[in-house]
């Protein structure tokens, strides 16, 4: 990406707005989390709407949106969590390409459904990259800091053909309940028969201390047949760990690369997008493959 002199000035950063792209896969053996956009379908869709390659850097908001002033004209799109969108106070569309003029302000409001909205800008959000990615990894602090009021971000130049799509089909974020598809994890055999049955039939509630590292679930204890100490082992995205207190943790993009609690299941990649958008209080159930 090369800069164009066009800039975005952050007026209201929101609770936690970060730059995210495809992350840093391939470095887990050095202890570097994968990171990248949590709702990968919404990330790709936002980019597609403005004619970007699907993994270009975008802004990921958390619950209460963001407000941005543009110093020059740009095309933007907001996807992911459903939220009111305004340009200079006038209502604008969600999940569609929007032209923003020089000096205008894009306001993404509080999410009415889902957690994380994605704001793509034609040409991409231009910030320094670390280890090949512009993503902020909240676990290890790699990548550009979360947005603060007054920050200025660059806008990249478009490369190749600009082929915006007017309509991109999408599933809506979960609303109150979410069913996640699970694969067996490497330590599925550490569950007792009762534990396996609980996992298949139980209901859990998303805890408010969930973040980009993990979706934390409170619910019935998942009984184990083994309680040995496990030497640290590599963890894949979507790993479901059974904790000693009976809770479950679903690891998201900024997860630690190794861990010592048994991974009893792995969330099917498409269901990770629902994990990214599940608000605290959402009731989660599992469907085992």
């Amino acid at each position, binding site marked *: 990406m090369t800069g164009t002199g066009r800039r975005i000035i952050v007026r209201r950063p929101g609770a936690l707005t970060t730059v995210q792209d495809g992350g840093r*896969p*391939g*470095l*887990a*053996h*050095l*202890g*570097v989390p994968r990171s990248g956009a949590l709702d990968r379908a919404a990330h790709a869709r936002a980019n597609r709407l403005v004619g970007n390659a699907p993994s270009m850097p975008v802004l990921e908001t958390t619950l209460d949106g963001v407000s941005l002033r543009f110093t020059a004209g740009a095309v933007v799109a907001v996807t992911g969590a459903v939220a009111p969108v305004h340009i200079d106070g006038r209502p604008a569309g969600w999940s569609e390409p929007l032209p923003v003029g020089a000096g205008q302000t894009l306001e993404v409001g509080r999410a009415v459904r889902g957690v994380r909205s994605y704001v793509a800008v034609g040409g991409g959000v231009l910030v320094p990259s*670390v*280890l090949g990615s512009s993503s902020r990894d909240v*676990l*290890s602090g*790699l990548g550009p800091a979360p947005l603060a009021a007054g920050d200025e971000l660059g806008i990249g130049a478009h490369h190749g053909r600009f082929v915006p799509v007017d309509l991109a089909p999408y599933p809506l974020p979960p609303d109150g309940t979410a069913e996640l598809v699970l*694969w*067996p*994890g*490497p*330590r599925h055999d550490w569950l007792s028969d009762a534990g396996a049955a609980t996992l298949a039939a139980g209901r859990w509630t998303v805890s408010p201390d969930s973040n980009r590292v993990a979706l934390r679930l409170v619910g019935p204890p998942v009984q184990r047949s083994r309680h040995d100490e496990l*030497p*640290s*082992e*590599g*963890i*894949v995205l*979507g*790993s479901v760990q059974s904790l000693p207190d009976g809770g479950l943790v679903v690891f998201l993009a900024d997860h*630690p*690369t*190794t*861990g010592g609690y048994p*991974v009893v299941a*792995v*969330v*099917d*990649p498409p269901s990770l997008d629902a994990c990214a958008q599940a608000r605290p209080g959402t009731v989660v159930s599992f469907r085992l493959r």
Partner: protein
Amino acid sequence: MMMQIRPAGPTALLVELADLDEVLALSAEVARRRAGGWAPELVDVVPGGRTLLLDGLADPAAVADQLAGWTVPPVPATAGELVEIACCYDGPDLADVAEQWGTTPEEVGQRHASMPHTVAFCGFSPGFAYLAGLDAAHAVSRRRTPRTMVPAGSVAVGGPYTGIYPRPSPGGWQLIGRTDAVLWDTDRDPAALLRPGCRVRFVPVSSVEQP
């Protein structure tokens, strides 16, 4: 080599092995085969204490079948890159460790430096390496109360491992010394000084620069 191959979701396998030597041997074999074009879609190869994770496979079941037929040569003891770490053994937990080892605080550094260490795996934070090398008699318990802030460059022992904190962070291991080695630098390639398989020799010194 007895491998127990466990599925880890739709695109990964967790291979369970007998010990660290087997983990390093399989890891080296995977690296050799990848260099020859095997499993080009593979994204991450992550060693653990007794496991190797292969993540990003198109067909994990097919790869599991292939692995079972592999002959994996052992890794010679001198195979890994040797990294020397200058260490000033003046940590605040020397007395605790000395008591667990049945020796004096002055002797802890000499003993620790006399043992050959190998990077088993990384984790906890970027560039944090778990160094195997303490024998069973020298495994140490963790601090009852973790420190909220451990300075960067602290050399610490916990369980059977030695670790060096790449950046200030909370930590529950026993601090035995300090180094000015730069463990993690994103402008360096590779960014991590200590990578799985590296051999590490601690060299006692009387002082180090503040990192």
